[in-house]
């Protein structure tokens, strides 16, 4: 029986670690589902989970590259706060005078500013690490303090609110989704794209005369991928929008609201952003020279250098990318809260690092996947939300998350040793 399962996994070409993570995730969901009489497994909760995970998961994809190259970035939480505050101040205090309150370009300027700020700050840290050879731990520890302090100076500690209405859509909420029809279209396109990609890669392999999976195995994988995507969309499309929000939205669209009218949320915009980021980062990691150099440098920095890779410049690029992703995460986090106070992003660096590490990124360098980090972020968020929903108080939540982190990494180490990798 056990051997049969192993055989099947082998034939399907599935990564056992991925299966382990998904198993852990499902176990967490089921356990909290039982303890909350199914509330945890409601569309509403899954929608909230997906939105709450987005910001940390976006950063975790960048942290994979940082940790793979044997660095660390402790500054992302503070940087998120600083960028969030700066961009909020931009919307509240600067842009209304410049282009007018509620102008269509406000959100675009804000998003570009956030990404640019992150990229520049990250590149600067990367330059100190790569060219001045100060350890990343120290440089980003410094960054953690500097950005948190700088955040206060932007507005002398004042909370910035409310944010631009279009900008707020990027944070999710009743309006910040694709809506029902668009979600279905999104799901179908994504499923078709996944199927097309898998078939294309299969044809390429066959053309080169390499071994390919048996057709039935490929078929099962295709069904899982397409089914998973459509299932997710279906759940998101089963979460009705509240009456209050419906009244607001129908009014805004000039539709008359009647009792009994039901609209569902659909896929939240931050989740669409996360998906986009995850796909782009996966392509970078597995399909570009830059990604190849990241992993080579993590595996053997000396060999990378001897192979002609400019590892210092690579470090600058990695931290710039991490910063840009932090900028995107800052947009999501601030838009979701519709206000930025000086606490925004506090301790996020630890959540991000934990997500990457639970997702199988090795601190010794050289190994880690983007999908792992995203699932890692989802596991962390599920644990936290689950505990909150069964009434575990905050201090105990921290204790549990801390223990789980250590336990998960230990399991990963044991697994690696067994697998001989």
């Amino acid at each position, binding site marked *: 029986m056990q051997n049969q399962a192993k055989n099947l996994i082998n034939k399907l070409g599935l990564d056992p670690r991925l299966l382990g993570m998904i198993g852990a995730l499902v176990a967490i969901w089921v356990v909290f589902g039982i303890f909350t009489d199914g509330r945890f497994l409601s569309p509403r909760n899954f929608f909230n989970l997906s939105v709450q995970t987005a910001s940390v998961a976006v950063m975790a994809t960048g942290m994979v590259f940082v940790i793979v190259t044997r660095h660390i970035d402790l500054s992302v939480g503070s940087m998120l706060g600083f960028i969030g505050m700066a961009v909020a101040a931009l919307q509240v205090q600067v842009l209304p005078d410049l282009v007018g309150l509620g102008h269509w370009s406000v959100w675009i300027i804000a998003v570009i500013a956030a990404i640019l700020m992150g990229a520049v700050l990250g590149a600067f840290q990367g330059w100190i690490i790569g060219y001045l050879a100060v350890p990343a731990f120290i440089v980003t520890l410094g960054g953690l303090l500097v950005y948190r302090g700088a955040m206060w100076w932007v507005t002398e500690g004042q909370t910035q609110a409310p944010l631009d209405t279009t900008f707020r859509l990027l944070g999710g909420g009743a309006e910040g989704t694709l809506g029902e029809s668009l979600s279905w279209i999104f799901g179908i396109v994504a499923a078709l794209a996944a199927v097309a990609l898998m078939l294309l890669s299969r044809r390429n392999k066959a053309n080169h005369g390499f071994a390919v999976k048996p057709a039935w195995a490929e078929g099962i994988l295709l069904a899982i991928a397409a089914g998973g995507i459509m299932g997710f969309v279906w759940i998101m499309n089963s979460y009705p929008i509240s009456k209050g929000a419906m009244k607001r939205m129908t009014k805004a669209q000039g539709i008359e609201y009647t009792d009994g009218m039901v609209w569902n949320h659909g896929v939240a915009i931050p989740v669409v952003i996360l998906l986009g980021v995850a796909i782009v980062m996966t392509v970078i990691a597995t399909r*570009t020279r830059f990604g190849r150099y990241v992993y080579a440098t993590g595996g*053997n920095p000396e060999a990378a250098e001897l192979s002609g890779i400019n590892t210092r410049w690579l470090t600058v690029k990695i931290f710039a990318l991490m910063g840009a992703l932090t900028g995107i995460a800052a947009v999501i986090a601030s838009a979701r809260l519709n206000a930025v106070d000086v606490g925004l992003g506090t301790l996020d660096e630890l959540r991000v690092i934990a997500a990457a590490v639970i997702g199988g990124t090795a601190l010794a360098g050289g190994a880690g996947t983007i999908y792992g980090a995203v699932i890692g972020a989802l596991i962390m968020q599920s644990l936290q939300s689950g505990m909150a929903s069964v009434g575990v108080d905050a201090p105990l939540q921290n204790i549990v998350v801390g223990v789980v982190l250590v336990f998960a990494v230990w399991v990963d180490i044991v697994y690696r040793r067994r697998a001989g990798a």
Partner: protein
Amino acid sequence: MDKQTPLVDMRDIHISFGGIHAVDHVSVDLYPGEVVGLLGHNGAGKSTLIKILSGAYQADGGEIYINGEKAEIHNPRDARKYNIETIYQTLALADNLDAASNLFLGRELVTPIGTVDDDAMEAETRKIMAKLNPNFQKFAEPVSALSGGQRQSVAIARAVYFDAKILIMDEPTAALGPHETQMVSELIQQLKTQGIGIFLISHDIHDVMELCDRASVMKNGELVGTVDVNDVTDDDLLGMIILGKRPEGVTVQG
């Protein structure tokens, strides 16, 4: 051969690490189609000398001429521009990547849209490995899963794949079995006929006598001398390596 311009001419190279003169004013040269053996005891400075040529180290002083022109080699990328390829003693492989990724590291084959073409690289790797080490089959595993000899085969494949004009081999057969060693010897002979110049570092006097045209011997960072292998016996070479004694009655350069 003497009238030609040397392919490589390293003059008066010196470098020290914290007071230790690892290479102490050494001059060696290499002509097209020639194999020059670099010999010496452990720590004599052989690897350090060739790492200066391959761009891994920056010399404290001295000059390098390639085809008679002064060359500026500040890093491994510069060396590659001069078609210098190196098999490092440490192999310099990224253990977490597979053979093909290592072979093409820094010079990946790309698709028309600019993404790395792993399938094409694996196909090329299969071709070259079929020539070098036909038993090699582990194309999908990371090289950490390979044996020492298999790893060495990958490092050799990487150096010879890219049309090197100057090839540096730092103990290339140290981990190889007799059959694989034989194949590398044949490879060296074949590369010679293509006009490639090779620096071969080896502790095996027999190999050196068989494969090399000349031998440069180092001791404690200094050059003992360079001799034509046809002029000397095994014992002469051993004397140079162990005692630093230049053989009598033969022309010794340097």
